[in-house]
């Protein structure tokens, strides 16, 4: 099953490679991994999207907790949560018909056009993984030049929080 694990870790050189190394050494899946410092610059917050049986997920959380740099973690998918991913897409948009079609799709998905040339549009879209996937699908009639996805960030709903 797909899981989103949020990790607070020391903002130290090498911390990211410890996590990445753990996943590759033990053969765990990583669908996406994002990391950046938090409001407390000594801490980073990482969001890992992974999948596996319950046993594997249990091992993943235990192994992550075992890393000396990891302060705390939660499995967001165990409760109510919000996930968001940012995507930037550059598409061919030459001629009125094509430009209108892209605009229409962008409107439907509540995206934005953030850069324009005479032959291309650059689009921005945020949403959960499914929505971003669906948008890429919807663009199938258009010629995509490149896609950049940020990977998922997640946060618990309501009062549920992960703090040191």
């Amino acid at each position, binding site marked *: 099953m797909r899981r989103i694990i949020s990790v607070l870790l020391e903002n130290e050189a090498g911390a990211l490679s410890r996590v990445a190394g753990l996943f590759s050494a033990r053969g765990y899946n990583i669908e996406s991994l994002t990391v950046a410092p938090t409001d407390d610059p000594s801490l980073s917050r990482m969001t890992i999207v992974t999948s596996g049986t319950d046993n594997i997920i*249990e091992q993943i959380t235990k192994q992550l*907790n*075992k890393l*000396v740099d990891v302060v705390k973690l939660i499995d967001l998918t165990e409760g109510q949560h919000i996930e968001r991913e940012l995507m930037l897409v550059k598409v061919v948009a030459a001629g009125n018909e094509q430009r209108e079609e892209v605009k229409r799709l962008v409107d439907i998905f509540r995206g934005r056009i953030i850069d324009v040339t005479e032959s291309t549009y650059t689009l921005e879209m945020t949403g959960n993984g499914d929505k971003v996937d669906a948008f890429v699908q919807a663009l199938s009639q258009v010629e995509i030049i490149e896609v950049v996805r940020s990977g998922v960030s997640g946060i618990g709903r309501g009062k549920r929080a992960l703090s*040191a």
Partner: protein
Amino acid sequence: MQLTGADIVVRCLQDEGIEFLFGYPGGAALHIYDALYKQDQVKHILVRHEQGATHAADGYARATGKPGVVLVTSGPGVTNTITGIATAYMDSIPMVVLTAQVPSHLIGDDAFQEVDTVGITRPCVKHNFLVGDVDSLADTLKKAFYIASSGRPGPVVVDIPKDITANLAEYAYPESVDMRSYQPRTRGHSKQVKRGVDLLLSAKKPIVYTGGGAVLGDAEDVLQKMVNMLGYPSTSTLMGLGAIPASNETFLGMLGMHGTYESNMAMHDCDVMFAVGARFDDRVTGELSKFSPNARIVQIDIDPSSIGKNVGVEVPIVGDCKEVLEQMVQLLEPRIDEIDRGEVNKWWEQINRWKSIDSLAYKTNDEKIVPQLVVERLGEITNGEAYVCSDVGQHQMWAAQYYAFEKPRRWINSGGLGTMGFGLPSAMGVQLAYPDSTVICITGDASIQMCIQELSCCLQYGLPIKVINLNNQYMGMVRQWQEFFYDRRYSHSYMDALPDFVKLAESYGHIGMRVQEPSKLDATLEEAFALTDRLVFVDVITDPTVNVYPMIAGGKGHNEMHLAPGQEEVKERELA
């Protein structure tokens, strides 16, 4: 007063109470070596290969419980330590490895003798540090010792660029460490402890299965108290030998691939299994799908990730073995009469039938020395109380099966990684820690050649180790597998062109002896052990055809053991 980084390193070691530093110098480490020269509190032991330094520090740690410390130079100095670091990591041995690094401004430039030490060691350390400035040096070293020795112990690498060892800073060794991201838990959760006790008391066919964690956690006293009180059969992994004395009435011997028949059968048929600091390693469980089908399991481990990793556990208890066992004993004592002795006695009767097969029986002959006998004689000569350091192979299994360890921390071997070359250098660390104790290195003709250069180190420091080379002129364990599973195609397992080990020992300045006739074995061993102040290398020429039995082959369960030739008939008779 301001000190250089190099002086700070040495002061930290002094203030940490470090007795021995196992090392080998080189360019990037020279400031630290200069600082060592100016003091004599920390004794530097000059090995002959950096791998030897790590194994020596490891042996010291296994025997004493204190962290072993290593110092090496950058580049090849570091890469030579990897095998030893990984060995310590697999067996959870506390160790701090100080690695010199090229000067900070050259890092990343492919400088002379530069390797990415932090990157190369990451997968086989508990943690590692690259020191960024001289002001954080003492703090980092304190943390390194704390992390290495607390929780589930393990090796920690501290990489120190050369410029930092020349820079100046005020020195103060921190009194304590507080890390928000690292707070190992030692006490068992009281609710879990109670559930564990309930389950243990309800058992009809119990087994106590102890591992290396019981030794590392110094849990032997309370463990013995507990098994005696329960009167349940007990068994141990390769790593746990000695925590329950071999002579303890409850003890069935080792379990697993080369464990006793009764241990493995009891593991297979039990209804309640009590795992104490053991991690259900594949050499122990055999085929997982056949593992102990009816067992309800209570497991104590300090590392949550060791619980439920391979085998489902009904009552997990995270904590230090000793502390948790003490908690459990408190609850058990007033309730001990709840045990259904009638059922447990029936279980013991069954176990005694298995035992009567005598799965470790072996045949001797007048022509050739059989290796099992050598180990048994060593056990008798030293009352099961010597420190026995082993290499890897058949001799290691025979040492584990036949020495009969009476005390913990006496059986020093590389269980997890199975590192040939471990035996001799680890024995150096043990002998340094206990100069007046008997330290034996049981080795094989192949393994001993992997770190034989340390015979030179042994001479320099006057280490009177007794090296017992069970010389079967083969990589015996490889030969055994080829005999069983590859139709006797002995591909590259014959040790052609062996050196004359007696002359070799002599040329290193030691005493060499050779024995080939069974009738002379005892006299030779006695002569060797009488030379208490000299290293004696005894080359014991053994019967090359002997195999390690009993054995669980790949894909088999605990109840499908392969017995020694002849023992199958005994089994038929006894169990008829």
